[in-house]
């Protein structure tokens, strides 16, 4: 959602590029278009758009992503 911005610099999202295998599934499952592929690896394109839902963490096959998700 481009018009909806929330509080900045608070997300607990962490990406470990060394563990990333470049499958791209994080870019498919994120509902806020936070992730993008750069040079065949995942990168955080829009950190402040992250709502800590955990979809990327749950689906990453190599555990390259961490977030402390809310209660749902």
């Amino acid at each position: 959602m481009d018009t909806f911005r929330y509080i900045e610099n608070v997300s607990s999202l962490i990406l470990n590029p060394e563990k990333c295998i470049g499958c791209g599934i994080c870019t498919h499952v994120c509902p806020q278009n936070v992730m993008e592929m750069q040079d065949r690896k995942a990168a955080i394109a829009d950190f402040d758009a992250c709502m800590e839902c955990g979809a990327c963490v749950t689906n990453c096959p190599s555990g390259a992503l961490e977030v402390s998700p809310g209660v749902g």
Partner: protein
Amino acid sequence: MDKQNKKIDLAGNGFSTTGVQLMESMPVNQGACGELPSDPMAAYEKPGYKLMHYIEGFIETDVCLVPLIKTDLDRGDHIANGLVRCGISRYKYRVVPGLYAVGKPTRESEVLVTANFKLTIDHLRKAISGIDAWVLVLDTKGINVWCAAGKGTFSTATLVRQIKEAQLDRMVDHRRVIVPQLGATGVSATAVKKESGFKVVYGPVRATDIPAFFNNGFVADRQMRTVTFTLSERLILSPIELQTALKPALIAAVIIFFLSGIGPGVFSITNAWARGATAVLALAVGIFSGAVITPALLPFIPVKEFALKGIIAGFGTALLFIFIFPAAAISLKGGIALLLFATAMSSVMAMNYTGTTPFTSPSGVEKEMKRYIPIQLISLVLSTGIWIYAAF
């Protein structure tokens, strides 16, 4: 056995039964009104079970009878959906989990996975009218897909369990299940594949995009994958926000009436009613501002924190109210107290609204709560003090 193929006018008023084979032992009903049309669904009734109104038949497969879901919503559905949107019988609004069908699915048809909240089911079935598919309903305890995914009931485990219980591998020849995008929070596609043999394909966020998704070669484009929060999507959440506030507000109203009666003669019932009514009105304005006006104006109020959006909207709404109904303020001191009170209540309700928005992060909400709850509490205490003082 006498076999007779002839036209028999059973009722004497135009009903005919050409081609009926009359056997000797079969009684012929010659009643004056003719046969009552039999309910085709009556054949599926079983002692002790009630047939759900949204089922229009059953499909016979090698494995079992699969209920066929109607893709049109009737008036009863719309009324029930409206009530649930207001919080009435919300947790009872469920569908039995398991395998259902829509249209005329075959062993090649896709499997759409969903939650057992009836509102979710209604959104889905309305959108897939004309499509032939299997619908696998998970037991999310009557919660919608995204919330259930966050809470862990729309998960790898429940999906794998339902795939096995429905014997999906015997129902379809392919090995794909289409999971709503927002289920991804709770579902690991790799784990589901490993544990059930079925590959998860993430479908669009909105059920209304399913036909386009099917036509698109089962590829979800960026628009299908992005969550929106339009004006109607924001306002549809207001009734339940108001319903949640109802009981605390009524208790607050009683307290307000008592506090409003405090004055020079210790306690005056006339004051309690007159002043109390005005103060309760301020409470209502504050709640309305936080639960309806702030959500409506959400993207237009140029601050990030919802509590602050509520302050701005609350202050504006209360001022507007006093402008239109100057008598409501009673006195200058009273007016200041009520303005502060309405603003604080609006902030509380707006902050609460973060729980129902699709773009707020828990970390962000925690930060704004830490900052604004003390401000809200101090404002409430201060406004109460000024209000009582204004009576003297």
